């Protein structure tokens, strides 16, 4: 009991779990952990080719002449942290029945594992972004804010994960239900277009939900534009509330996990 109250104290254990999670994905692969770099590079090349050459896409109010793929990539990194986490959340607890039933373990930290792994991948994405910015000559001091801008989306993903992980234990269908919704979130979020392109009537929804606000803020930070702090802090507050609710929900259901698994 006392263990579960201080899961922050379990950070070494959490670190080990995340490390195992990331390593396990690449274990035995020929390029090994190099895939952490190769994957986002391939993705970046595809975006550069498809949007830069085929679509010749231009951002409507594109100030400083950054290529479209770079604009896209700077927002996509934030969205990927969310989507990687949330799509794996339903199985975050379900896949570790031994941890729930056989050992004394702070189960609350299990949903933090996909999040941690997503952040690790996000860090490599950001390194590539920095490289790309430097290469295109757009590197600016604003970029230092980029990791901080991610805070609401990380909390939001975590809150949602706690909900989904708890449900995932009881309802096997969750791992089927979630991915299409994540896909939908991708198209509804201002990843492929700026929030300013949406009709005025629903603009507020875009500026204050954690996904929209963070993607916009991240893009602004990466490209050295001014950040909309009011919508960002609104999103932060909302995310903190959702995280708290998610944890409460998870804890409320936690005692039934062992029975259901």
């Amino acid at each position, binding site marked *: 009991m006392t263990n579960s109250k201080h899961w922050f104290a379990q950070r070494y254990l959490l670190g080990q779990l995340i490390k*195992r999670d990331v390593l396990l994905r690449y274990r035995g692969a020929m390029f090994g952990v190099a895939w952490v770099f190769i994957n986002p590079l391939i993705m970046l090349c595809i975006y550069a080719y498809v949007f830069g050459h085929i679509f010749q896409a231009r951002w409507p109010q594109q100030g400083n002449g950054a290529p479209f793929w770079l604009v896209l990539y700077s927002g996509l990194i934030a969205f990927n942290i969310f989507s990687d986490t949330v799509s794996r959340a339903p199985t975050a607890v379900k896949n570790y029945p031994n941890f729930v039933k056989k*050992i004394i373990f702070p189960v609350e930290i299990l949903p933090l594992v996909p999040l941690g792994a997503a952040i690790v991948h996000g860090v490599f994405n950001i390194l590539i972004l920095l490289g790309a910015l430097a290469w295109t000559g757009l590197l600016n001091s604003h970029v230092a804010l980029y990791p901080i801008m991610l805070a609401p989306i990380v909390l939001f993903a975590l809150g949602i994960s706690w909900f989904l992980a708890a449900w995932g234990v009881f309802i096997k269908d969750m791992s089927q239900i979630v991915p299409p919704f994540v896909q939908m979130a991708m198209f509804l979020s201002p990843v492929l277009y700026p929030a300013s392109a949406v009709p005025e009537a629903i603009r507020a929804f875009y500026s204050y939900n954690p996904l929209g606000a963070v993607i916009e803020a991240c893009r602004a930070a990466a490209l050295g534009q001014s950040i909309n702090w009011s919508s960002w802090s609104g999103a932060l507050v909302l995310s903190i509330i959702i995280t708290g609710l998610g944890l409460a929900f998870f804890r409320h259901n936690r005692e039934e996990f*062992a*029975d259901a698994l």
Partner: protein
Amino acid sequence: MPFDDPAISVRNLTKTYRLFGHAGDRVKQFLTFGVKRFHREFTALKDLSFDINKGEAVGIIGRNGSGKSTLLQLICGILKPTSGTVQTHRRISALLELGAGFNPEFTGRENVYFQGALMGFTRIDMEARFDDIAAFAEIGEFIDQPVRTYSSGMFVRLAFAAMIHADADILVIDEALAVGDEAFQRKCFSKLLDYLDGNEKILLFVSHNIRQVERICSRAIWLEDGRVVQQGPAREICAAYQDRIHQQVQDTHERSKLRPTFVDSGEVDVIRLQLFKGADEEPVDEIEIHTAVKVVIDFRCHSRLIAPDIIVGFHTTDSVFIAAASTAILPMQPDFPAGDHRVEVRVADLILLPGVYQMRLGFLDRHLRTMWSGHKLSTFRVTAPARSDVIRLPPGLVDMQFEWVFALPEGKQ
């Protein structure tokens, strides 16, 4: 120190499981805010109270389903009690399943470090212990191979080594020592005794092996149907428990053991000889002619039977033998190791004519010496088909299939 708090104190502990028949029922229950009940309840533990003090090794015994594992899970805090409390004042290391935290893709070394992390040790703590663990596990070079390449013995050795070196105050072991070879088991036992020796550790030990419990534990708690039947010194409780088990076995034995009428060498006990209709679950004592039946023999042998002849036959109540099936006609007669067995003889079409019949049964060893033989064993009645007005049954014992052919004498057309 009589004024010390007990290290584990269990008060009025009750655990009720909610059993949902279908995954969707849980959702329904949730959506109706628990107003409507979609589940059944099963009480695994009822109002348990006891204390365990430092330095005690407590065995928990009882038959399958008596609530032993649930109790351990509750003490470990893995399950939450439905009512009552469990208080533990010290650090618990639970081994409810050996190697529960191991991931087969990682090496033994990585898994040991991870197991350490699960038990709250940092890398530095583990480095100090690692050599001891590896030495105890005796798996040599394999320590740097993925665990999936291990034999089950190696896996168990490493898992036990990692657990016993965790140096917990309360060690919980659930059936974990039933595995591994004799030599390693002995090593584990002496290690467990070392662990208990002198210092103020606690061991909670669940095993079906009563001898193990007697040997290691100072105290035992005997559970049955979620209640404490008796608790006290391990030797006394184990003896009482064994008496009870023996009595129960004896009782079922007495009630159902068939009495052979001819020979009983004592090597085979026939428990039941039953007749079933088709694939039915329940035995019958009345059956319609021309149905598929099977005769099921439940028997127990006390030593290995090598290629015995088993003979099942039908006879009338006045001992007219009608038909018999024997394993002697099989190209390969099976052996039966000591223990309980069930053998079925299937009859595609029961051609006995309506009346009352009995069965006989015999066991012969491979030298055709009779080990068990009896008749007038199970009595059953064969009935006429429901539409017997249509088919007139002939007198006699069996409804043999005849065919009439009417041909004229040769040459006369």
